[in-house]
């Protein structure tokens, strides 16, 4: 017997329902990528271990980008890191979220006049949540994660869609700052 209510929905609406169900599970089991790009990563161990216990929010560390949901950009990004960060971000499977830590990702922070550090992260990759502070203490880090979950619930954490839609703009910005986005690892030899 056919459910009358379900048959009234269009395919698009059914897809949306499935996304909502997916989002529910996704936001309650977020795997964060273990990549310490900067100094705010020093507040992650207290958040992960017994003092604040990130696992009660359903978050855990993940070693490979392909299986991770959240990329934590912990602090300033030098050009050398940005190249590798873009590489990492593009490897992650969708949907993917970015949390930017510290004032350095927002506007360059204390390194705003440095020759090696970028000033504004969301020109190069999309950011969903910022955690302000230099460095943000563990409570604000945890609060940032809760905010990310709320955003996923409200369907506002759509940075990865922006990145797909405005890919040319992002690529253009990356090229302007980095010159060459591709990583060449043989320079050291």
């Amino acid at each position: 017997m056919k459910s009358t209510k379900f048959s009234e929905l269009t395919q698009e609406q059914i897809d949306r329902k499935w996304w909502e169900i997916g989002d529910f599970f996704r936001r309650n089991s977020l795997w964060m990528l273990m990549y310490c790009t900067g100094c705010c990563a020093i507040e992650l161990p207290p958040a992960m271990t017994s003092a604040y216990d990130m696992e009660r929010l359903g978050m855990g560390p993940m070693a490979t980008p392909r299986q991770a949901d959240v990329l934590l950009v912990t602090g300033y990004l030098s050009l050398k890191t940005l190249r590798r960060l873009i590489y990492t971000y593009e490897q992650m499977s969708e949907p993917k979220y970015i949390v930017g830590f510290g004032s350095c990702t927002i506007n360059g922070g204390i390194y705003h006049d440095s020759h090696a550090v970028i000033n504004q992260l969301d020109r190069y990759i999309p950011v969903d949540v910022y955690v302000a502070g230099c460095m943000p203490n563990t409570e604000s880090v945890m609060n940032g994660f809760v905010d990310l979950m709320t955003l996923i619930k409200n369907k506002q954490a759509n940075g990865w869609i922006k990145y797909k839609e405005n890919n040319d703009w992002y690529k253009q910005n990356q090229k302007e700052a980095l010159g060459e986005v591709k990583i060449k690892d043989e320079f050291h030899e």
Partner: protein
Amino acid sequence: MRKLKLFLGPQHPGMHGNAAIHMYVEGDIIKKSYLLPGMLHRGFEKGMERHSFVNNISLIPRVCVVEPDINELAFAMAVEKLADLKVPERAEWIRMIIMELARISIHLMAYGGLGGPTGNYTLMYHAHADRNTILGFFERITGHRVYHQYIVPGGVRKDLPNDGIEADILDFLTDLENRYDEYRDLGIENPTLLARIKDTILLPEEVVWELGVTGIGMRSAVNKPYDIRKKMPYCKYDEVEFNVPVSNYSDARSRVDLKLKEVVQSIRIIRQCIDKMPEGKVRVPIAQGQSMRWTVPKGHVYSVVESSRGEFGYYMVSNGGTHPYRVGVRGASYPQGLLGIEKYMPGTRIDDAALWVDTMGVCSPEIDR
């Protein structure tokens, strides 16, 4: 056998900090390896030239992320030497308390970090819980958990809070000391871990002298108390009693062992500090409220502090202006991090690489600056 090119890091759970080791392996033996530094380069040495001496106070703790206080002290000591400032006695003792608390916290963090490459995560949970308590003390004393900006040229920023912090610190230290055996049992006395870290990653005495390794790496190999705190005492380290643990065989285990033994000595030092600390002022005012226009006399000075990884130095040149003319930072892990990995990591196995970085004490932010 097939040769492979592998990367350890920058995105790798076994790598501490944002650096990569680029290695060529045959089977599981590393044949050639390099450190790829520079991913944490922020242009500090240039940035310090662009800020005045007082503004720099907020910049310097960020040079070394895990252990910011050594930067503050080394910078403050360099400025004091140039400007001939006399630090009040109470400030010296408070500085020592901060430094030794920081030393305990970094040793605990390194000890817990040993859990990463060896897969013993219980260790990490224990060590980080205790470290978190120390960060709580820092927050009460200085207002910040990690970057304190507390030790400034001319003393410390403010006195210890009047809420019984000394008693709380002493309580915590007694608690930590009581659990010392437990810590050893969890980590370096644990047979499963011992099989992994014993007799690996050797550091012979010749290598120490060739690379210029200092700190625990050096003391574990040469069997002499080569510690800056003993050899050229700064603050009031000549007025407290403590031993410098040494050994004559440097493998991964003995280096970790020395770290734990240093924690006990640090506890001893803090107790004596709290006991001997006089009352009084904690800061000499510089330039009577005109601190932004404060000029430091001409000169060039190198000031050193014993960090958890070895000799940490600031080379400072002043041309008599409000800004330092040049500040150079000698990262304590510079020798073993760059030259050590290039010359002495080949020959070990792939799975030892993460342990190598961990037990040698390679800290990438101070290499990159």
